[in-house]
């Protein structure tokens, strides 16, 4: 009997092969347990508001006014909303072609893209062209659109860091391309060695792969490292030599928890390098409203900026963007607000700064608390979270545990994380979801649980880890609490 169209066997293989662990097995199990009444702490995804972080007041005020413009006609509106929020709502509504309910330009509202360009110029000191900035429904959509242009078939390879945020592996899989891994050095604080890059490329080429693009995630996810300027220069030079387009995932640029390596954009470094690099290297930079201190994941707002992409290619990318019609307008307004927040002297400025600083300083403290907590466990080694929102400790698993995992039909870190979940309710993502060196195991958690709850969560983890190690370990039979 011939297969029906939606029989499992007749599905697109690329779909079946793609994996996205962030919402994979662990998350599904955690959701099941939650339904059964167990208290779950979801640290599987960078979703700050889900763990109690409050939205910033000012943008919510502005967008609420844009949702219901009739409010602006009410004579008492000034008693409920500050004047600058009212002014800003009017400003953004005037930039739209019919309010939040009308499709905008497929690339995003021109006025907002101009504000993004101005932000980039202030940040980097180099001009930015709004025509080369496209707003998208989240940065992920932008990444998918660009990879769709770059990947022609299985012979096209994309250099991706290992460990990586699995949007990249999943999308490459869905598009039928080939992921070319380059390993970050855990012992060097997840540093990037250009020799590793060269080796990866050489190996791929020997297998007939055309390496087309290189992804960097800076600050890193799950690893959190912030690239140094020297590193960025090396990478850009490498991309120039090898004719690769650089995809700079910079969504965590506002999440920096140390002062030695502040964020520098790939674009700035590229422009600083001058000709020929600044005119030759093709670069696409991604940003979002989901991270930083905004954490507005649910809005689905992002953008990408193109550098040195030929006009005809830009047209094709525009064409593909137009199939999505337009990014959602509310998120475009969030993006405008993010790149042009309240200024000193604005009525809402003090509150805005207070809220933002509060969040960032707390994130910095939590990054430290978590790193230290993990490092206090004998079988755990954890690099400091220099940036982003995650902690990625290495868990040294004894051979008995690995064997038990095998018996259970699970990859060792999945086995560990499932046990952790069942014992403590802490829902993490096993390192295998991000890629890691053979025989080395990690888990990814976020630094997002509320500060007051951190000590208890770390204690809970340590208790579980002790028990796990005494069950499966050789010499860890004592309590370390």
């Amino acid at each position, binding site marked *: 009997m011939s297969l029906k*169209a939606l029989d499992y066997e007749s599905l697109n293989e690329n779909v079946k092969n793609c994996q996205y662990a962030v919402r994979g097995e662990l998350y599904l199990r955690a959701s099941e347990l939650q339904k059964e009444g167990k208290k779950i702490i979801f640290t599987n995804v960078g979703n700050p*508001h889900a763990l109690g972080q409050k939205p910033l007041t000012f943008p919510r005020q502005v967008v609420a006014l844009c949702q219901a413009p009739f409010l602006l006609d*009410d004579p008492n509106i000034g008693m409920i909303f500050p004047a600058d929020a009212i002014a800003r709502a009017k400003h953004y509504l005037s930039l739209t072609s019919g309010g939040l309910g009308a499709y905008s330009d497929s690339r995003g509202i021109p006025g907002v893209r101009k504000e993004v360009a101005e932000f980039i110029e202030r940040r980097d000191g180099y001009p930015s062209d709004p025509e080369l900035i496209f707003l998208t429904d989240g940065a992920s*959509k932008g990444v998918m659109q660009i990879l769709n242009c*770059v990947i022609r078939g299985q012979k096209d390879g994309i250099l991706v860091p290992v460990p990586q945020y699995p949007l990249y592996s999943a999308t490459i899989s*869905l598009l039928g391309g080939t992921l070319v891994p380059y390993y970050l050095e855990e012992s060097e604080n997840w540093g990037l060695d250009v020799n590793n890059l060269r080796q990866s490329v050489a190996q791929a080429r020997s297998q007939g792969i055309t390496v087309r693009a290189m992804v960097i995630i800076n600050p890193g996810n799950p690893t959190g490292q912030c690239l140094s300027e020297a590193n960025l220069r090396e990478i850009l030079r490498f991309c120039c030599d090898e004719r690769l387009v650089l995809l700079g995932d910079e969504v965590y640029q506002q999440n920096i928890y140390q002062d030695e390596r502040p964020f520098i954009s790939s674009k700035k470094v590229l422009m600083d390098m001058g000709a020929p690099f600044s005119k030759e290297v093709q670069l696409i930079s991604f940003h979002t409203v989901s991270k930083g201190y905004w954490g507005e994941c649910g809005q689905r707002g992002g953008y990408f900026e193109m550098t040195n992409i030929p006009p005809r290619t830009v047209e094709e990318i525009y064409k593909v963007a*137009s*199939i*999505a019609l337009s990014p959602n307008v*509310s998120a475009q307004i969030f993006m405008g607000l993010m790149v042009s927040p309240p200024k000193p002297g604005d009525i809402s400025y003090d509150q805005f700064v207070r809220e933002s600083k509060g969040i960032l300083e707390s994130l910095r403290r939590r990054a430290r608390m978590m790193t230290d907590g993990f490092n206090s466990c004998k079988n755990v080694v954890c690099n400091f979270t220099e940036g982003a929102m995650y902690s990625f400790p290495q868990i040294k698993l004894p051979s008995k545990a690995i064997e038990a995992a095998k018996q259970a039909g699970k990859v060792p870190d999945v086995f560990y994380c499932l046990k952790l979940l069942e014992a403590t309710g802490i829902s993490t993502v096993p390192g295998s979801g991000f890629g890691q060196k053979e025989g080395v195991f990690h888990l990814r958690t976020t630094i997002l649980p509320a500060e007051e709850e951190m000590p208890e969560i770390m204690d809970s983890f340590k208790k579980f880890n002790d028990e796990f190690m005494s069950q499966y370990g050789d010499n860890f039979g004592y309590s370390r609490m």
Partner: protein
Amino acid sequence: MRRFVIGQAKNLIDQSRRRQLHHHKNLSFVSLIPPFSAPSDSSSRHLSSSSSSDMSASDSSSSLPVTLDTINPKVIKCEYAVRGEIVNIAQKLQEDLKTNKDAYPFDEIIYCNIGNPQSLGQQPITFFREVLALCSYTALLDESATHGLFSSDSIERAWKILDQIPGRATGAYSHSQGIKGLRDAIADGIEARDGFPADPNDIFMTDGASPGVHMMMQLLITSEKDGILCPIPQYPLYSASIALHGGTLVPYYLDEASGWGLEISELKKQLEDARSKGITVRALAVINPGNPTGQVLSEENQRDVVNFCKQEGLVLLADEVYQENVYVPDKKFHSFKKVARSMGYGEKDLALVSFQSVSKGYYGECGKRGGYMEVTGFTSDVREQIYKMASVNLCSNISGQILASLIMSPPKPGDDSYESYIAEKDGILSSLARRAKTLEEALNKLEGVTCNRAEGAMYLFPCLHLPQKAIAAAEAEKTAPDNFYCKRLLKATGIVVVPGSGFRQVPGTWHFRCTILPQEDKIPAIVDRLTAFHQSFMDEFRD
């Protein structure tokens, strides 16, 4: 309403073919329209029809990874009418009008090319926006001062929705299928509409209906040997999506003479034809009410379609985004789900994906990007794959999700907002019906123009029986006759419509698509200008 772009330049396609990038069974038509250009380009690029001189130097250095000849050829191949030449010209005219009013026989550009109701003055439904504002800035719920500003049921609904969101966090990623409580509301709404139950676990919420269509194409298409049956004329999301995913579009022609009827014999013929060429046909896409054609299928027709899919093992992709837009008393919308269930067909009989959106109907909330697909009749392992695909993008935007639940569960009799809601809804729908009628009558009065009535949706798709002289003039300008007509129309009247080639049509026939969306008070002027233009066009080109 969705946008669309005039097709890819013939010369660009020719160039890519010469470079032998990729051999596809090429069902995409070749347009005679000059190069599509981004609006920032100088106008001279629009008018030239040769391309090689247009290519910038950096495009020809093929060692760079992202040049035109090295990007994914499926991207090059796909065509999607959004902003073609006509809209570019319109935008330039609009700019020029600001300073040069006297140079033109019209005062303003009227965009009838794009189904974007709120950009043409349609107002959003108050109740929906009240709820969205309250959910955006929840402090509004706490202030006693605001109880005068918001209706009591909008406050109640906002509380209800917020309580369905973990932590009331509207800024958090939700479940990848959408917030459970909202899916429950949608499932209830589907049941109330159809009289048959719906399972919230069958619902996948998306940023508009379009991403859902893409997901299904991704799932169903592995290679160009996979075909999807699509209506001609069609809304070009389908052709573009199929091309992007490397599949084959298998056309079935709607019959203009019988009000754009869907004949099962035509479906069968095209299916057999495709199969004889080694294509595995996987799905049938039906747009009901139709776009651009506006027909509402009869229940009998729908039953035949259901049986056809069941017999042939095809997935039925039911694009039902215009389900609230029906303007004629002799037709009614019936969902394919309802039809299938009333035939006694269940999960084991038919794989059906039904799409709905917040962009259409009487709410017209295009910019919010809200929608969902209801997927029934497939096994749990396939459902897992759909879930997995949805999860890579994490979730659709929350505000859009909330709106999707609201349109499927609007105010009921007795609710505080019901009276004003119903007045707004009926006002919009009856106005749309009047505009559909007025424009259709006006078009049918034009010499050589026949126009089927718009039974539903938001468009009119008149057929132009162009005189030979006009066709020759078009050819001399190296452009399709319908594009030639539309350009002339724009320059004479400021009215922007889209040539039929953007939607495909029976070869040798010419159409254009015009929306019924300009505000009612503008319609008489539009009719007058269109009539005057057509008269003079025919005077110039009459055989």
